[in-house]
């Protein structure tokens, strides 16, 4: 049953470009990018660490990818790997320094790092194009929305699989133990620092790759919009609305919030964001464990 529905959803996702209009494909592509960010943020949260650095590594990956194509003639698809690797290497170096921090101190440091990246992008103009940003003349696949969609879909599947690996293997036991009680985790033989570093590097790589894809899709980077707080707050909201500590939660959250905001906009061109804010507030009040978490709770209690 479960495998069947997964296959069905997957099949639908793959053939979507043949049955839907470009607009829907575009909206779904964007939602999937945010879904990957939400998943990666949640994957870090599963270790108990609240990261506010999502936008930072997203932007880092975006810049790395654009520079790779523009200055080093890297193939655009390959540049996504460049973005991921660059974000991973940076997070590896920074992780050694900041992963001793906990709770709000970790959160604020990752937030501050995002600002540091932004300042660097704005001021290292020879490399980054400065405040005006950097453009490419062609979007990836010459702007073919279907190919772009499939690229994003494959990336999303990779992220979902990673998240499931985090959920189903010994990694889950390590990171959930760390989240619950570090002292107990340590006393159970878990190398806390190693796992935190692994998770930090992997999630940063996902964020970097997401940024790289976004940048290749629209063929530009620009400090303020590439490091925008949207890439931080929206994924967090999605994961929380859907339900944290799971793979399905952030997926559901991304779909719900992504489609809601787009649909609301079509419904009421002016002031739709007020309703969007109120919807978030109401979701938190009435679905405390998120959409998915609450549904699962209801099913279990039956």
């Amino acid at each position, binding site marked *: 049953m479960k495998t069947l529905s997964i296959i069905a959803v997957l099949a639908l996702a793959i053939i979507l470009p043949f049955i839907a209009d470009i607009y829907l494909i575009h909206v779904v592509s964007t939602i999937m990018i945010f879904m990957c960010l939400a998943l990666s943020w949640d994957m870090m949260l599963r270790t108990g660490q609240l990261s506010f650095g999502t936008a930072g590594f997203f932007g880092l990956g975006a810049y790395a990818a654009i520079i790779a194509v523009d200055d080093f003639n890297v193939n655009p698809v390959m540049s996504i790997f460049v973005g991921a690797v660059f974000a991973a290497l940076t997070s590896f170096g920074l992780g050694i320094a900041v992963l001793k921090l906990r709770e709000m101190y970790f959160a604020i440091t990752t937030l501050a790092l995002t600002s540091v990246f932004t300042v660097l992008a704005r001021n290292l103009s020879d490399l980054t194009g400065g405040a005006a940003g950097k453009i490419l003349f062609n979007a990836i696949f010459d702007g073919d929305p279907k190919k772009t969609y499939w690229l994003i879909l494959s990336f999303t599947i990779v992220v979902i699989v990673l998240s499931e690996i985090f959920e189903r293997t010994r990694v889950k*036991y390590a990171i*959930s133990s760390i989240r619950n009680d570090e*002292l*107990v985790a340590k006393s159970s*033989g878990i190398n806390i620092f190693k796992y935190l570093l692994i998770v930090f590097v992997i999630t940063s790589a996902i964020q970097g790759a997401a940024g790289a894809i976004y940048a290749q899709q629209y063929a530009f980077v620009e400090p303020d919009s590439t490091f925008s707080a949207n890439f931080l707050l929206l994924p967090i909201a999605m994961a929380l609305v859907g339900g944290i500590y799971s793979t399905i939660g952030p997926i559901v959250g991304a779909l719900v919030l992504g489609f809601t905001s787009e649909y609301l906009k079509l419904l009421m061109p002016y002031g739709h964001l007020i309703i969007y804010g109120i919807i978030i507030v109401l979701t938190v009040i009435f679905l405390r464990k998120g959409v998915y978490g609450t549904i699962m709770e209801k099913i279990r209690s039956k």
Partner: protein
Amino acid sequence: MATLRLENLTKHFGGLVAVNNVTFEVAEQEILGIIGPNGAGKTTLTSLVAGTLQVSGGRIVFEGKDVTKSPAHLRVRMGISRTFQTVRPLKDFTALENIMVGALFARGESLGKAKERAYQVCQLLEFDRAERYPDRLTVFELKKLEIARAIVSDPKILFLDEIMAGLNFEEMKQMINIVRSLRDRGVTICVIEHVMSVINELTDRVIVLDRGEIIAQGPYQEVSQNRRVIAAYLGEEG
């Protein structure tokens, strides 16, 4: 050869000396009692041996190897295990999964093997509600869980920190049997306890700590007559 040897172990917190120049040995398969007033440094001592606190001075030698600088997770893998005074279950896991964590990481077993091993430990402890989440367990069961998690890594030495606290007489009796059976399987055990009847029944030898220093040691019957121990710890009624 002694399983564990502490040499001049010292720990400061800021200006406060919690453990002061403590030296003793624990022999193989011995059950050693560590007693002393509240705040004497017993739990701190356990944390130092387990590696969750760093020593300020002195050495910890385990099976002939100096482990003073080893990180906590490696000491567990070598065979030093402990329970926590206040139970600390991982609340997002079932009891069984709680136990599995130790098998997974301290012994490096696969998921399936770890589960099997966790079941075995449950059987050993007569712990039959392992599928439950910790918030649905009684104090006694939580204490058992605490022990299960500590022994699933197959330790050579085990520190039991107040496992009797909050248990009634019958439960204590069960617990004593469990500890004995562990010793019979070759585990060296240190018990920290305030219940003197248990100490009397269980231990081969006790060490009395007061303000971070050893004030007496020997068999319980002997130590319990010590004036200093009575004054600092047992009280006149004993």
